[in-house]
């Protein structure tokens, strides 16, 4: 197989996975193919315009852009919770996705949580117990991203915990769930080797978990 002549097929996304990987490896050190690919990709993308395009449902724009902010329920220490109505089709290592309302500056917590979650330098750990991930910045700031977490029943709340290796669970904030995606910036740093978990507790939160974790992540 001459890898050079896969350029057009690559531009059209007409390679199978094996061929695609081979071509991408080749591309890294073939200047000629990179140039040719840029041109052919431009032509291929033009094909997108040839189709009839009915307007997408308005809800799609909202799904991509809209977010809502769960009211803060700070108690003993500052912490922030954010629920973003956003896509989380593949919440998993490296492929998580979120965005938020286009109304800028509404809630700084929003951007802060997103910044941690979107930062390539943050470690992304898949959750156990529920679809989602934990993102931990190099400084230990952490964001829980949970897909389709049901809203906590009346009088109850979810509570996040940071459990240092060999230590007792420490409170890290409460949140309500609901919506397509729940994003919670934890109220305390996550040290190396710690476990992050969430339990269902009575409204307002408690000082120590009273039930088994519904979800957890081992850092």
């Amino acid at each position, binding site marked *: 197989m001459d890898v050079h002549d896969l350029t057009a*097929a690559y531009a059209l996304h007409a390679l199978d996975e094996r061929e695609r990987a081979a071509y991408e490896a080749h591309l890294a050190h073939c200047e000629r193919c990179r140039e040719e690919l840029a041109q052919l990709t431009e032509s291929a993308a033009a094909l997108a315009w040839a189709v009839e395009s009915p*307007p997408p449902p308005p809800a799609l724009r909202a799904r*991509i*852009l809209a977010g809502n902010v769960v009211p803060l329920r700070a108690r003993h220490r500052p912490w922030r919770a954010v629920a973003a109505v956003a896509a989380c089709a593949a919440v998993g290592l490296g492929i998580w996705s979120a965005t938020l*309302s286009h109304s800028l500056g509404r809630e700084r917590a929003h951007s802060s949580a997103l910044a941690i979650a979107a930062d390539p330098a943050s470690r992304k750990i898949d959750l156990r117990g529920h679809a989602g991930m934990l993102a931990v910045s190099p400084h230990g700031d952490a964001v829980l991203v949970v897909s389709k977490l049901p809203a906590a029943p009346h009088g109850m709340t979810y509570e996040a915990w940071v459990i240092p290796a060999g230590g007792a669970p420490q409170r890290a904030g409460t949140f309500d769930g609901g919506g397509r995606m729940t994003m919670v910036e934890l109220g305390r740093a996550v040290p190396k080797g710690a476990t992050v978990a969430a339990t269902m507790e009575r409204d307002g939160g408690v000082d120590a978990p009273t039930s088994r974790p519904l979800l957890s992540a081992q850092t």
Partner: protein
Amino acid sequence: MSDVTRELAHLSDEALVALAARAQETALAELYDRYGRPAYGLALRVLRDESLAEDAVQEAFMTIWNTAQRFVPEKGKASTWILTLVHRRAVDVVRREQRRRTEALDTAAEPGGDAADEEAWLRLQRERVQDALRQLPDQQREALELAYYGGFTQSELAERLGQPIGTIKSRMFNGLARLRELLGDTTMERNWTSTT
């Protein structure tokens, strides 16, 4: 198209991507207002399922949001990058879902009552590219259409058309190269400020 003021309407696509890379949500909104519709049309053409098409567009825009920092304007236009992401996502899904078909999609263009301007511009682009496609030799056009809209791999095309794979590769290459000549370098440029 949009219910908010398009305050970024004067910016180039590339400038919007740069803003999106700095986590400016309004930039993503503006990019969606520019390319959401062709993106959806493309995804629908490949996937032939409204719900799957919506998901593909959404995932592509999430990728745009998350990888905008890595976009290099010198390597190509932002519109190409966006539509390429949408197409790749749609093709990945169509292969996974085993939904590929080759019959024509019978979606008549639904006139969007709120944006006659948008409608006219889209129609202009559509006619332009369709016209270029018609000028291609039949075999090249067939290869491009089956690959791009059908989501078939080159090996599947070779089998389907009963041709050696080398022939398929040549048809795709020559078709794209010819398309490029026919469309010229200045295709798809648009002064966005005129659309608000």
